[in-house]
């Protein structure tokens, strides 16, 4: 009982303790202190070294530009899709097409996109058929110096996330009523939605938007695959310094990590100012009363962009699949001359051990997270705790503090503690990121469970524990398994925590896949990225299948 009461505090410790410890572990070396290297005198040397790196201004501009650009684009598209199409059949179709894409790991989606838009990718091959090209166009499309392909990769991945967060927040706002009222006053569909629903919706999705912004600015795996190289984004450069055999570069890496944190905070501040400006302009726009009835072109544009975004991931996965079984595949041909299982036969056995580690890490990390989340929610239920708005901020903290800002510090601490390179350290690091998603996924269904079931159970003499195990958990089997699937997908997709805490000694499908980014062996990439995607998909399939089987004779739980 008292253990349950302490569950929320324990959960915060497990989740935020490493973040704070990692930030401290970054702060010290950034100011020149690293006893392991015999540096004990504080100083600004790491910062002056960082400033002397000639690529710095461009790396900083890339981080800011790709982060702000992709977040703005993804958010605008999500809102325009909802504004133009919510409540229509086309919207449900788009929703169904985009939702499962959330579970596709970032790295796999990025590789898939790369296979589509590369000079010898499917898009160029299709154009070649029409225009009669014999050779791939001589253009630097992938890893372009402006970071445009990186922005594209981030937008197609963040769009499903923002859409899902929006769909979760919408029903409570009764958008149908607002829209009907606005339209009866003569407003066009999009304008009516933007003027009556959006202002109430945005505060509900603010935290996810901040998470997307912070993530996009500091992402490493997608930037390694799609981002520019000389110089890369700041986060990628920090990782290069971290991985350099010259340990002295760790100090510069720590300084860079700290700069990344400051950049992220600055961008969030800038975004907040933007919010205030948009609110002011928006209010004037609303009060001006324009009906904006001719929104057909805008609606077509938003739908086209949404469909394109879904297609980019789906066709990207298809491209990975075709390459993984391709024999010889010359340029303008749309399909390979021959299909062969050779790549799978050759790579498959080598992927078994990383696949096993991927599964082990995902299951243990998700299990720990699930136990903590259930304990928190059950404590909330039994002791009548009311989670505050601040608690939600704390939950989002690990998603908003850039990974590259605190994981290097955590790695140094793990090194000092002698646990670096162990699978336990990797699992502990995964829990930090799995936990918020498991909580977000499970909290609403858990809180939405009819409390009268518990009262009836207790009135029949059942103890709180019996009500939890015999009534609540079985009735919530479906959302619990969905939360497990979400947790596993998050864990499978983690790159930086695995790489840094695993010290290169713990290999998962994701580290294996991202390591191929610089090589360009397409068949191997196809096999590895598909295996990674399958690892993220499988739990979702099971989360659908298991309740359907277990409760096959229980009509009351069909749509639970």
């Amino acid at each position, binding site marked *: 009982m008292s253990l349950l009461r302490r569950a929320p505090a324990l959960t915060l410790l497990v989740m935020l303790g490493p973040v704070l410890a990692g930030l401290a572990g970054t702060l010290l070396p950034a100011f020149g202190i690293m006893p392991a290297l015999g540096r004990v005198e504080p100083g600004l040397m790491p910062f002056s070294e960082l400033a002397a790196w000639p690529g710095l201004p461009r790396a900083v501009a890339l981080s800011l530009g790709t982060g702000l650009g992709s977040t703005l684009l993804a958010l605008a598209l999500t809102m325009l899709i909802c504004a133009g199409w919510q409540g229509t059949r086309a919207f449900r179709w788009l929703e169904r097409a985009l939702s499962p894409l959330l579970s596709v790991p970032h790295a796999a989606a990025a590789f898939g996109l790369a296979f589509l838009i590369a000079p010898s990718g499917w898009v160029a091959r299709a154009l070649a058929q029409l225009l009669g090209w014999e050779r791939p166009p001589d253009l630097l499309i992938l890893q372009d110096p402006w970071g445009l392909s990186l922005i594209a990769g981030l937008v197609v991945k963040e769009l499903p996330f923002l859409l899902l967060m929006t769909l979760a927040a919408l029903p409570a706002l009764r958008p149908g009523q607002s829209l009907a009222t606005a339209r009866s006053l003569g407003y066009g569909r999009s304008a009516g939605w933007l003027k009556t629903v959006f202002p109430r919706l945005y505060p509900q999705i603010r935290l996810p938007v901040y998470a997307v912004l912070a993530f996009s600015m500091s992402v490493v795996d997608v930037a390694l695959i799609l981002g520019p190289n000389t110089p890369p984004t700041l986060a990628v450069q920090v990782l290069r310094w971290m991985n350099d055999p010259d340990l002295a570069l760790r100090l510069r890496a720590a300084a860079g990590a700290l700069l990344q944190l400051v950049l992220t905070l600055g961008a969030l501040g800038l975004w907040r100012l933007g919010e205030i400006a948009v609110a002011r302009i928006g209010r004037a726009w609303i009060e001006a009363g324009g009906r904006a009835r001719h929104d057909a072109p805008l609606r077509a544009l938003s739908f086209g962009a949404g469909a394109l975004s879904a297609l980019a991931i789906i066709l990207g996965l298809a491209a990975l699949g075709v390459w993984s079984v391709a024999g010889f595949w010359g340029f303008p041909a749309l399909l390979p001359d021959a299909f062969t299982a050779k790549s799978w036969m050759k790579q498959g056995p080598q992927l078994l051990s990383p696949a096993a580690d991927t599964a082990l890490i995902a299951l243990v990390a998700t299990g720990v997270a699930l136990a903590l989340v259930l304990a928190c929610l059950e404590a909330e239920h039994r*002791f*009548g705790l009311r989670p505050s708005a601040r608690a939600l901020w704390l939950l989002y903290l690990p998603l908003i503090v850039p990974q590259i800002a605190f994981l290097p510090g955590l790695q140094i601490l793990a090194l000092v503690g002698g646990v670096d390179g162990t699978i336990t350290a990797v699992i502990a690091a995964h829990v930090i990121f799995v936990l918020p998603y498991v909580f977000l996924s499970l909290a609403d269904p858990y809180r939405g469970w*009819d*409390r*009268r*079931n*518990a*009262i*009836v*159970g*207790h*009135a*029949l*003499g*059942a*103890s*709180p524990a019996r009500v939890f195990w*015999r*009534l609540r958990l*079985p*009735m919530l*089997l479906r959302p619990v398994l969905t939360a497990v699937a979400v947790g596993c997908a998050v864990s499978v997709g983690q790159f930086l925590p695995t790489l840094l805490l695993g010290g290169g000694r713990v290999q998962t499908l994701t580290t294996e896949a991202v390591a191929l980014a610089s090589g360009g062996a397409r068949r191997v990439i196809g096999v590895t990225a598909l295996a990674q995607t399958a690892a993220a998909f499988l739990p979702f399939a099971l989360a659908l299948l298991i309740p359907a089987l277990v*409760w096959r*004779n*229980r*009509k*009351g*739980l069909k749509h*639970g």
Partner: protein
Amino acid sequence: MADGLRLETLEIRLGGRCMVALDAHVAPGEVLTVMGPSGSGKSTLLAAITGALDPAFALSGRILLDGEDVTALPTERRRIGILFQDELLFPHLSVGGNLAFGLTPSLRGRAARRKRIDSALQEIGLEGFAARDPATLSGGQKARVALMRTLLAEPRALLLDEPFSRLDAARRGQIRELVFARAKAQRLPVLLVTHDREDACAAGGAVIELGA
């Protein structure tokens, strides 16, 4: 006079404002009806008696069951049965499983418990329904299973939270009669909360009106 359900100067407050104040006694086999419009604190009163009152409320006074003060006991140790407007049959358990969840653990042995459940189903005219999915039952059948589940736990009092208002007119009288007859036969004190005059008349006991 020590028998039955006694509410001694019961008062429920929310933020200093008095929601419900009640002093009442329900003898075994009798029914006390509490009426009042929605928002008058009927459900809050029932929550207080079952021990499921939201911590935001402050409760004073005592709740006595057969002379025992249960005010501080958790719901599961009070042995007060409750029937809601919805039957709240657990959707993941079969009809028999629902009854088994209620059946007192003092009856031991798989075979003996099974036998008791079969005979309980027979008593409410649902012989052979043990393996059925509760979602496939009619409204009247569900109501009977919910009643039997409550009785099998051997409660010392029965609370009814508008349990008949979901049923159609034909089933309504039938179920109402069944509930009151069983409660009388087992000498249970019954507290009925309703906004329906007809329910109150059928109950035949004292009526208390709560203000809005």
